[in-house]
């Protein structure tokens, strides 16, 4: 009779390992979204949600959105100006290092 393999005794039988079932995933999610406080969101079917959507998506929505996003076209224009108007950089007064050699850049640019 073979001796017991003691180094294997701590290993559990695979049937004793907990199996993750679909219910273990679905149930917590269902519980979370069914709690009343979760209905205070912009898309939920609740009194708070209805009030919020009425206050947001009214006749002033587009106007307000344009005003909120107003800085971004200015940002874009300034970035374009930076790209177009970026100056050449003046290096130190001493002669440039020998590592600088005129070499044509490839065609790929910005």
């Amino acid at each position, binding site marked *: 009779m073979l001796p017991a393999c003691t180094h294997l005794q701590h290993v559990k039988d695979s049937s004793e390992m907990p199996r993750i079932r679909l219910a273990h995933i679905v149930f917590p999610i269902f519980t979370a979204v069914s709690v009343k406080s979760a209905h205070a969101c912009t898309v939920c079917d609740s009194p708070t949600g209805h009030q919020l959507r009425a206050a947001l998506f009214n006749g002033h929505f587009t106007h307000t959105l344009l005003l*909120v996003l107003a800085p971004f076209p200015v940002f874009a224009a*300034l970035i374009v100006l930076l790209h177009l108007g970026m100056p*050449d950089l*003046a290096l130190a007064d001493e002669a440039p290092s020998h590592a600088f050699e005129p070499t044509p850049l490839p065609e790929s640019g*910005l």
Partner: protein
Amino acid sequence: MSLLSTAPGILPKEHTRPLVVAGTVIGLGMGGFVDGILFHQILQLHNMLSNWVLRDSLRNEQINMVWDGFFHAFTWTCVAIGLALLWRAVTRPGTLLSGKAMWGALLLGFGLFNLVEGTIDHEILQVHHVYQNGNHPLWDMVFLASGVVLMAGGWSLIGQGFRETASRPHAQVVRR
């Protein structure tokens, strides 16, 4: 390393511009996140429309939060575009790589955000102020001044960074 040189002592912008533009766009978006996370969420000094929709009820707080979300979606987009530009810059042959210049560009973008957003939102449109319930003209001026300081500091770092990097015998340049 070989760099195109049109004149002695001049580093053409083709070597510096890609990194600067990319860093500025990223810094612009990150500046928006600093404002959004620090002032809107942690300190709760103001929200996007807190001067138009007073935060005196839960509904009004939620309205402001939604508009914050729209604004920050665009700052997120700025960071995403900046990352794409950065990738393009570091894979473009001839781009001079400088960590100091990159930091300078980030500060330049951050300062640009403060200056432009501060002028448009706080002064012109007055959709909100920096410190909604306090002495907001003072805080608004400090915010604008911070933008100017950041831009000036960033621009200085950009120049320093590229000069230091270009002067090294083995400067990091993206090769073909």
